[in-house]
């Protein structure tokens, strides 16, 4: 005896419902990709770009750490400003992880620079120069270079690596400003008309995380610099060891 199963009627509403459920799952997956997986992938790409660049600057030479009794490096070399969207440096912040390095390009274009790493405000001076050298990057999305920017502590090292060497700054303070707060980019931040005597580094990103109603600003002060021939800062030994592999 055979039992014939009753043939299910294909209902239009049923198919529509399944399509909606599928669309909903895809949107959720996209969100997960945007805030997590895509970020991871892009962040890794940026790190590997930065490492490749660093190796090219080493010209095959070793990146042995500089001796602690290294000679006085003298005044830091200041490179001429590159053209828009030209990658000219790496930003290295050990507080964000021992392997944290991200490429810096000239300009703050949303599509041509900030999607690929950190942007250097063209109106600000180059790293190592007297005045303010300012950078912007995403806190979320596009690899989230500045996701942990609020975790920086006073005295933390912030390195800008260029072909000439490593410029070391130390984190001094943090503030929150309106999106229009251009005072943070002044040669002496928030002090209009004052002539700069110090070398300041400024990082800007959005705040709170996942929104952009404010800007989070980190200031750092120049400490010293390490010419490329003299070897990398000892603090970056874990990073240069990974990069050499």
């Amino acid at each position, binding site marked *: 005896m055979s039992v014939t199963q009753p043939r299910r009627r294909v209902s239009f509403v049923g198919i529509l419902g*399944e399509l909606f459920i599928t669309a909903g799952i895809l949107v959720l997956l996209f969100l997960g*990709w945007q805030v997590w997986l*895509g970020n991871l992938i892009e962040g890794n790409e940026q790190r590997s770009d930065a490492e490749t660049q660093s190796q090219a600057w080493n010209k095959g030479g070793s990146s042995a750490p500089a001796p602690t009794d290294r000679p006085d490096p003298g005044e830091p070399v200041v490179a001429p400003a590159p053209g828009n969207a030209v990658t000219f440096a790496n930003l290295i912040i050990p507080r964000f992880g021992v392997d944290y390095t991200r490429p810096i390009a000239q300009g703050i274009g949303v599509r041509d620079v900030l999607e690929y790493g950190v942007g250097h405000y063209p109106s600000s001076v180059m790293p190592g120069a007297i005045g303010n050298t300012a950078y912007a990057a995403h806190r979320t999305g596009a690899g989230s270079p500045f996701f942990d920017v609020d975790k920086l502590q006073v005295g933390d090292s912030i390195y800008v690596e260029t072909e000439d060497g490593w410029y070391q700054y130390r984190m001094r303070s943090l503030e929150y400003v309106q999106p*229009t*707060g251009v005072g943070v980019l002044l040669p002496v931040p928030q002090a209009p008309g004052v002539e700069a005597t110090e070398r300041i580094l400024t990082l800007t*990103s959005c705040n709170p995380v996942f929104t952009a109603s404010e*800007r989070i600003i980190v200031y750092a002060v120049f400490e010293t610099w390490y010419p490329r021939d003299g070897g990398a800062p000892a603090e970056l030994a874990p990073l240069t060891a990974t990069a050499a592999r």
Partner: protein
Amino acid sequence: MYGALWRVLPGPWWVRVLILVVLVAAILTAMVFWVFPWVNGFIIPQDVTVGDS
């Protein structure tokens, strides 16, 4: 829709499950590496700079 897909697939149930797993993996890979980055291009990123722009 998915019921029809299940009926169309050949073989015993575990073969169908295997085919579905491979299918889902392929779709997810395509999403993550091509579709999602493409869609992301239409979404206005958050502003991280100070200034008028």
